[in-house]
């Protein structure tokens, strides 16, 4: 078993070094180019620490991916962030992470300083030169002095997700999680060196783990599709055709907007073989559109939270589903243990609802520097009393149908998935509640319209544009509500709590 993900990189650099490893708007690099540059960055990082977090404060692009490689080669782990996060959120991440170094460019120095980042930790990517003086073998054996000491339970990356208290949680994923996930993905999705993987997920979103490591483990090209292309579905199809993309891992919203705007033609996207999607519920009506237009493609539905390394169940879509049917999340990925526990913490019988819990090598190590939250989410398997068997409770309610397929029902709490992002509605409520004219509020999500809405009580109705502007300063764009309702009184239940279910019936009528 591989001790670290850098083993993937060593092998690919030796076998496919001359192949294009990554392509983006800025250009393209071969695997050898990536390695030579990453090697040089690793050399600069070594003095900063070992097995320590390194923040990557760079926009999505080739440099960010090379930075990941360099950080891993240095024996440290990377933490990518969204540069467009509002300042207060970024500050919380910075203070939680306390990075040993920050890989960035000079153009971001001012932003980072104003966020309170320590200038001595900055390492400027533009100063990193490609190492040309040594052979690949020499460099690999040099790197092995560090990477052979990595063990597979050491962290590989930290990804930040939304937390209900307004403090983002840093999920710490070990090398073991990624190696395990990729070994499953390679057999399930049948990827090889001739593939061209079209990446959509931001690098701070863990879906990109699949794209990146499928490329590193096989020698396939990773094509970073420019973000703006996703605004124009017709252009996205054009781009994918021009680049000869063979596999994509998209959030359902992307597939939905292509379907809504009806931009597929029979026989288009001839190179594309596999369409993978995960991150939120996929409406079967829109998937049906893809299947009818492009029946020769393979469609794979994955499911999983960041805490278990991207995905833990999969479903290769076997037929066209009726719009009224829900698409199964399917079966456990190889080497992922799935438990469905009912309210009494006993295994749910077929058809019975229960919480999906995961056990095995895919589990994250916990939340970075947050013992309390870690202990609440990662717990002893209640079905095992003979030894320490850690499980992660996803908070997702599911059941197994008569075919033994797992079906997703919904969330236990007020967390939602919107545009692939995991959002705690409580975090939005917290932000909205901090505004002067909002005395009390409730945030709801309209599932089929994919709309976040804010219902609030306050002295007077606030203009929508004012609300949006103030919330945009506190929350990332995808969390800002799209609909606003000013109410004289928010209904409350017997416990004096806001009556969400009544509000849901009134404002989120799915019909």
């Amino acid at each position: 078993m591989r001790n670290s993900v850098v083993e993937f990189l060593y092998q690919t650099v030796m076998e496919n070094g001359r192949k294009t490893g990554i392509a983006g708007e800025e250009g393209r690099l071969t695997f050898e180019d990536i390695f030579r540059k990453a090697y040089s960055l690793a050399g600069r990082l070594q003095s900063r620490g070992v097995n320590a977090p390194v923040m990557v404060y760079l926009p999505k692009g080739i440099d960010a991916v090379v930075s990941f490689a360099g950080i891993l080669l240095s024996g440290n782990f990377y933490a990518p962030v969204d540069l467009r996060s509002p300042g207060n959120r970024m500050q919380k991440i910075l203070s939680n992470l306390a990075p040993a170094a920050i890989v960035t460019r000079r153009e971001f120095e001012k932003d980072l300083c104003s966020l309170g980042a320590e200038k001595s930790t900055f390492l400027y990517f533009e100063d990193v030169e490609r190492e040309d003086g040594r052979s690949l073998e020499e460099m690999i054996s040099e790197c092995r002095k560090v990477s052979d000491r990595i063990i597979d339970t050491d962290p590989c990356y930290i990804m930040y997700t939304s937390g209900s208290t307004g403090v983002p949680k840093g999920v710490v994923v070990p090398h073991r999680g990624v190696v395990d996930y990729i070994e499953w993905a390679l057999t399930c999705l049948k990827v090889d060196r001739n593939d061209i993987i079209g990446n959509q997920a931001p690098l701070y979103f863990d879906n990109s783990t699949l794209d990146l490591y499928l490329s590193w483990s096989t020698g396939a090209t990773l094509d970073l599709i420019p973000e703006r292309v996703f605004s124009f579905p017709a252009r996205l199809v054009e781009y994918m055709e021009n680049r000869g993309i063979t596999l994509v891992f998209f959030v359902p919203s992307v597939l939905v907007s292509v379907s809504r705007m009806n931009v597929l033609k029979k026989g288009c996207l001839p190179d594309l073989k596999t369409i993978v999607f995960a991150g939120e519920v996929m409406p079967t009506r829109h998937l049906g559109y893809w299947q009818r237009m492009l029946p020769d493609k393979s469609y794979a539905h994955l499911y999983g939270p960041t805490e278990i390394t991207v995905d833990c169940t999969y479903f290769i879509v076997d037929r066209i589903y009726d719009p009224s049917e829900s698409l199964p999340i399917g079966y456990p990925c190889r080497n992922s243990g799935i438990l469905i526990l009912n309210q009494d913490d006993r295994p749910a019988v077929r058809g019975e609802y229960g919480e999906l819990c995961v056990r095995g090598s895919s589990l994250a190590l916990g939340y970075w520097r947050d013992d309390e939250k870690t202990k609440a989410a990662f717990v002893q398997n209640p079905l095992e009393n003979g030894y320490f068997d850690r499980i992660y409770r996803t908070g997702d309610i599911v059941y197994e149908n008569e075919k033994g397929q797992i079906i997703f029902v919904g969330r236990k709490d007020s967390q939602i998935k919107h545009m692939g992002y995991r959002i705690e509605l409580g975090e939005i409520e917290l932000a909205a509640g901090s505004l002067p004219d909002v005395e009390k509020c409730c945030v709801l999500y309209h599932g089929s319209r994919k709309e976040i809405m804010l219902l609030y009580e306050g002295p007077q109705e606030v203009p929508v544009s004012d609300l949006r502007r103030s919330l945009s300063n506190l929350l990332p764009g995808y969390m800002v509500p799209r609909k606003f309702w000013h109410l004289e009184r928010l209904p409350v239940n017997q416990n004096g709590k806001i009556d969400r279910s009544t509000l849901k019936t009134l404002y989120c009528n799915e019909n």
Partner: protein
Amino acid sequence: MNEVISILTVIRPEVDFTRCDDFIKEGLLDSLDIVTLVAELEDRLGICIDGQDISPENFKNLETLLALLRRYTVL
């Protein structure tokens, strides 16, 4: 025209869209905004915009957007 501006203003209140030459290049509208914008325009104007017309050229600025909408409706 006012209707289009009011939709845009709800989406991005902090921006003066009348004084902007290229919404996309200047990063004023992301993919989420375009989806919302198209849905709102279709809703309010009772039209259905062809997917091929949802392009960076047509969504460049107010002028190009209005020119596009004129092909679908009388504004």
